């Protein structure tokens, strides 16, 4: 009766099949939902097509980035394949004065916030530690330390309250991140101070090789209630459901009612990063099941059912995607190698004589090579 082993099951736990908000079925059929329908009542064909376009563009440039990495142009890339709806549906719900704190995989979100093709390349090509100016697009640069950004979002949200504005901070993180103490502390602070922050968890079932069953024994969204934070579990491959959930959470935050936790249930269709070898741990059958729930195909089906998405629009979308991908590629090639002495820049705002000394010594050292040559 007593077990003497401590190994958890590696199988995806059954709770992954638990109910989630779904407004569009994988077949593209619109499912009415009295609570959430109002949040997307304004989303007409044109807007649906715009969401479709976003997802296609994002998938296209994600593929391009993987190719660039394979060609040695990027050091690394974390593909978002499969998570387009989760990222686009949430990011397109935001206002420009909202602020996003994300992890490394949210390149779809960055696109929506206004990151330019080249901006998406810098970090992964290794020419800079950040791709863009966070304040310029209302989004912090990718956070590599798992979970840290949830606290930043909470603090930012408190700042919004102090400023008397109704902007909202959104923290993006993964299922793996939910195990981190920082994510817990962020939820404690957010609940205590009624912070206008959204905890947006993309549960893509994996933390590198670890299935979500190693992190959670209940649906992740269930964690929220214990803090007094509403938790919503949403089909992360359903762009409309994601948008509806996000809008309702944003509204709640703007009204001063505090944080919401959203779990977008999705699947990482690619490797963790281009360095990863998922054949070591992914069951192809699981993956096939998720392929059948593809977010783009689903929206395509819905649009076709609504007689929207003309051939013309499709080719427009394709072109936009190609253009963006091409701009990304050329932007990548064009990124200048930073000047050696820039190593010393921006450590401090105020002058540091000690660092200045190291810099000038290294400059003199480098100069010797020039003299020699």
């Amino acid at each position, binding site marked *: 009766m007593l077990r003497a082993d401590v190994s958890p099951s590696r199988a995806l736990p059954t709770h992954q099949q638990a109910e989630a908000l779904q407004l569009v079925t994988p077949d593209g059929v619109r499912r009415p939902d009295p609570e959430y329908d109002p949040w997307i009542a304004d989303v007409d064909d044109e807007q649906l097509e715009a969401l479709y376009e976003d997802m296609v563009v994002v998938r296209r440039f994600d593929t391009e980035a993987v190719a660039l990495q394979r060609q040695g142009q990027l050091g690394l890339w974390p593909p978002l394949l499969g998570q387009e709806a989760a990222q686009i549906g949430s990011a397109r719900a935001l206002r420009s004065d909202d602020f996003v*704190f994300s992890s490394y995989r949210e390149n779809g979100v960055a696109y929506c916030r206004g990151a330019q093709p080249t901006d998406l390349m810098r970090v992964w090509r290794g020419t800079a530690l950040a791709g863009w100016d966070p304040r310029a697009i209302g989004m912090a640069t990718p956070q590599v*330390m798992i979970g840290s950004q*949830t606290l*930043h979002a909470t603090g930012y949200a408190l700042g*919004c309250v102090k400023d008397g504005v109704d902007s909202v901070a959104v923290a993006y993180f993964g299922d793996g991140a939910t195990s981190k103490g*920082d994510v817990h502390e962020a939820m404690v*602070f957010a609940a205590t101070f009624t912070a206008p922050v959204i905890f947006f968890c993309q549960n893509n079932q994996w933390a590198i090789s670890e299935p979500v069953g190693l992190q959670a024994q209940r649906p992740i969204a269930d964690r929220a209630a214990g803090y007094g934070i509403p938790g919503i579990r949403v089909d992360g491959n359903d762009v409309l459901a994601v948008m509806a959930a996000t809008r309702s959470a944003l509204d709640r935050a703007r009204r001063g009612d505090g944080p919401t936790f959203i779990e977008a249930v999705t699947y990482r269709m690619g490797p963790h990063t281009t360095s990863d070898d998922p054949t070591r741990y992914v069951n192809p059958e699981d993956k096939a099941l998720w392929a059948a729930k593809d977010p783009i195909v689903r929206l395509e089906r819905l649009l076709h059912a609504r007689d929207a998405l003309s051939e013309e629009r499709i080719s427009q979308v394709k072109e936009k995607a190609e253009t963006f991908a091409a701009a990304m590629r050329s932007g990548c090639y064009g990124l200048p190698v930073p000047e050696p002495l820039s190593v010393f820049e921006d450590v401090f705002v105020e002058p540091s004589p000690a660092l200045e000394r190291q810099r000038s010594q290294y400059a003199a050292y480098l100069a010797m090579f020039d003299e020699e040559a």
Partner: protein
Amino acid sequence: MTTMTLAAALNSGLRHALDDDPTVVLLGEDIGTLGGVFRVTDGLQRDFGADRVMDTPLAESGIMGVAVGLAYRGYRPVVEIQFDGFVYPAVDQLVTQVARIHYRTGGAVRMPITVRIPYGGGIGAVEHHSESPEAYFAHTPGLRVVTCASPQDAHTMIRQAIACDDPVVFFEPKRRYWVKGEVDESFDDVPLLDRARVVVEGTDVTLATYGPLVITARDAALAAQDDGLSVEVVDLRSLSPIDVDTLEASVRKTGRLVVTHEAQASGGLGAEIIASITDRCFDVLRSAPVRVTGFDTPYPAAKLEEHFLPDLDRILDAVDRVMGRQHSLTGWRAS
């Protein structure tokens, strides 16, 4: 000029900062209603509101990470870590975020966060309440680390730290909180935050220290004087970056160096100071620089701390040693 304790000087410095700049906010455990376990924030919540002087949940990583978010939004958070030993849960946010976001973003986002940490031993406390973790932060690029030794410096430096656009870890010598001194609050013509100061002039030996041991070092200089020795005491004030220029000038004059701090020897500030000074002053050094520090043990039980902590005698012994004196209370070469 008013006479006040070091703790009161910090309190008035914080008060000025809150008055001068509406973006200054204080965060910490028990800093509001209670006024902090050392009463350094006494009365501030009453006068500036719970909105600017915030009691937070009991979670140091949370406090530090929330401060980062506030800084993103344009605030100047002043975080209190209740005791030195409780900074470790915040080290991750401090080292990987606070210290690096300005560098990471190529200068786009500043982190003008001040982290106040009461530190050091000698108060007979239980574990985790008597430590000197400054070397961890001094080894962390992107952080400024400072400490004060007098009420005047406490007052001036906390205001400078808060006004500084870089993150500053501000170590407060807790066993000196009740030391009294004259404080000029005019804030005119104050020395730069990153400069050391010669607090006793001398010609035979340079004695470098900071924080709680500055007073001890002054006493040692006095005692040495009776013995015919002229000891120059340098209060570092800034622990990162270290003002090596001031130290160099002193050692060029004296040719001898003793460094004393409470923190453990290995990898402590003493090592950095000796390495830097040996580099710069090799030609003038007359004897090997000597460290007088805590031992390479965890901070011991209260009844043993007098042995762990450098004191007047151990400092004088080191002074004798660098002077090559025969009859010093030494024994250091015994093994």
